[in-house]
């Protein structure tokens, strides 16, 4: 079974550590990859693609040296491999224009303003990954423990794809 990765892109290592710490409850089920720049993120993405795994969630800072977070997300939206990836912009300083662009062209799923509450980030990550597996995965049972079990069960009920045998 392919792993579903969480990709965190943030240029300040201390902040990156905090993000990963906040998401540590998910790490057992969704391996976390860290990048300090858009360039590094691209390498990681192609690495994950080569392994045959998937990226379920990308949490991205906007203001970074080199390419900006919104640019990376637009690029991800244009690429088949990362189009379905849930995209969360995590930033304190993105201007209105950048944000509008992210919403319009990167199909941004969530916007989190810095500073954030640790539990809030985890909750958002859970919700987004739940939406991702509901959209992408046939068998939802492996994600029940880590994600929103009620939503997943409801999806199983609605799909009608389960049966006795």
């Amino acid at each position: 079974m392919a792993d579903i990765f969480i990709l965190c892109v943030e240029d300040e290592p201390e902040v990156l550590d905090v993000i990963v710490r906040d998401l540590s409850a998910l790490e057992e089920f969704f391996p976390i990859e860290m990048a300090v720049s858009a360039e590094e993120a691209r390498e990681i993405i192609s690495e994950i693609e080569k392994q045959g795994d998937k990226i379920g969630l990308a949490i991205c800072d906007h203001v970074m040296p080199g390419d900006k977070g919104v640019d990376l997300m637009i690029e991800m939206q244009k690429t088949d491999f990362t189009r379905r990836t849930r995209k969360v912009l995590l930033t304190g300083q993105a201007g209105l224009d950048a944000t509008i662009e992210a919403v319009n062209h990167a199909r941004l799923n969530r916007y989190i303003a810095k500073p954030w509450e640790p539990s809030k980030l985890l909750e958002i990550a859970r919700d987004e990954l739940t939406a991702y597996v509901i959209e992408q995965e046939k068998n939802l049972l492996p994600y029940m423990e880590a994600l929103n079990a009620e939503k997943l069960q409801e999806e199983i009920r609605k799909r009608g794809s389960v049966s006795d045998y």
Partner: protein
Amino acid sequence: MRNKKNEFPAWIKTAVGLALGLTGFLIPLLVHFDGLSFAGHLTLGIFLIAASFWMLEPIPIYSTSMLVIFLQIVLLSSQGPLYNNASLTPATVQTVEGEAQQWLVPESAVRDGSVWLYQGTNRSERVAVEIIASADGFTRVQSETLGDGTSIVSDAGNRLVGYTPANYTTFLGTLANPIIILFLGGFMLAAAAVKYNLDKNLTSVLLKPFGSKPMFIILGLMLVTAVLSAFMSNTATTAMMMTVAIPIALQVSKEDKFRIMLALSIPIAANLGGMATPIGTPPNAIVISALNQQGLGIAFGTWMMIAVPLVIVLLMVAWGLMRILYPPTLTEFKLKLDSSFDRSIKAKFMYGVFALTVLLWVTEAQHGIPSGMVAFLPVMALTVSSVLEKEDIRNLPWEVLWLVAGGISLGLSMENTGLAVWLVSSISWDVLPQILLLLVFGFVALMLSNFLSNTVTATLLIPLAVSMATSGIAGEGFSLVISAVMIGMACNMAMLLPISTPPNAIAMSTGYIKTGDMVKIGSIIGILGLFIALFFAVFFWPLFLL
């Protein structure tokens, strides 16, 4: 998932399953078994490949069923390459001078101490004879059944001997077997109920009277789950009930054992609830269709009469057991139970169809309209009214119908090629008292279906029970109906492991329970259930079934 390291490599299981299946298929083609017809050998091959594939699942179980039907139409049908040109040739029995009841027959006509009466180009009947002597291509045999001028089959090695080939439409027709249509009707009702949220709303309404005390909530959850899973699939019911149970579980701490009880009570009740009606779960279909073929019909209501009391007793046992094993700590829970029934015309029409169908099913014994016929009412009404649209129909669990059809089809050939009788005839069953036989059947069914699909277990065991009854091997007092029902019930009591049933897998996935919890309660329910069912089989079922 990350925990790849502990996984048993899947390809090994696939390879073993494929190898075992193909070997099993070839053995009967290469080895001759005494007393088994040529067609019996073919069927044994199909049986072995199917059993291997069903057990180890190198391919999905429903595709194994399709493979079974394919092999049957190719190998066993009168239109298949093996039988379309085959015909029997007659030979006449000659009298032996001076010896009464002794006859001269062609040597080739005798096999395994039998000759076969010629009854047409593709029909024959076995007659056991005593072989006296052989000479010049003729054998002198003694028999009371033969007479002067009796036509017998000249070549006992003919592949038609002992088997009258079935038309290929018989095998294909299993997909339209009344029991399959009954299930189709049930599936469509369930799909309509889910589409219009009838299942959730009913749950809210039915759970209300159970209040907010933990043990009563559990009792309510179990009863509602059992009632719904009697008419919907156990698995779909479990998924739906979990959406009710999870918010309750989130009110207690992760260590609270009440979570275990919550997560266990639903699959247990769903598994047990499936026993309650013929459409509750697929193994019931295998039981009923096999009995129908023997002319032993069980009405929908009769099935409920025998099964519902057993389900209630087992639910109470499970409830009491969990109360002892996982005593709740909290005294009160908040249950969010809003029901908002869809009041559109379509929804109301669907409620009406649902109620009418269930009513007609339950009263089958009173009005005499077979449940398979009634089942076409929802099939027709729900599509004519567009309650179910094209997408909904495509979404039905068709593979379950194929699975059951394959099981029915295999059972047919096991009976009419003599394979089933041959399989059970090596043991002298008549020395066992009926009650012990029931226990053996129940135990084997319980054990197998803990590891295999419940439907597959029933498919493999029911033909054996049928042949024990039809051949008289089991002796006087053996009741086919009761044995078959016992097997069916035991298949549904298997809930030892997460893999035992899909509802168990769903419950495990929540992470609230450990496999150990399931094994503990599953083993007690299985064993107790077996003996309780045995008690019912001896004292209660005969009132309705015999």
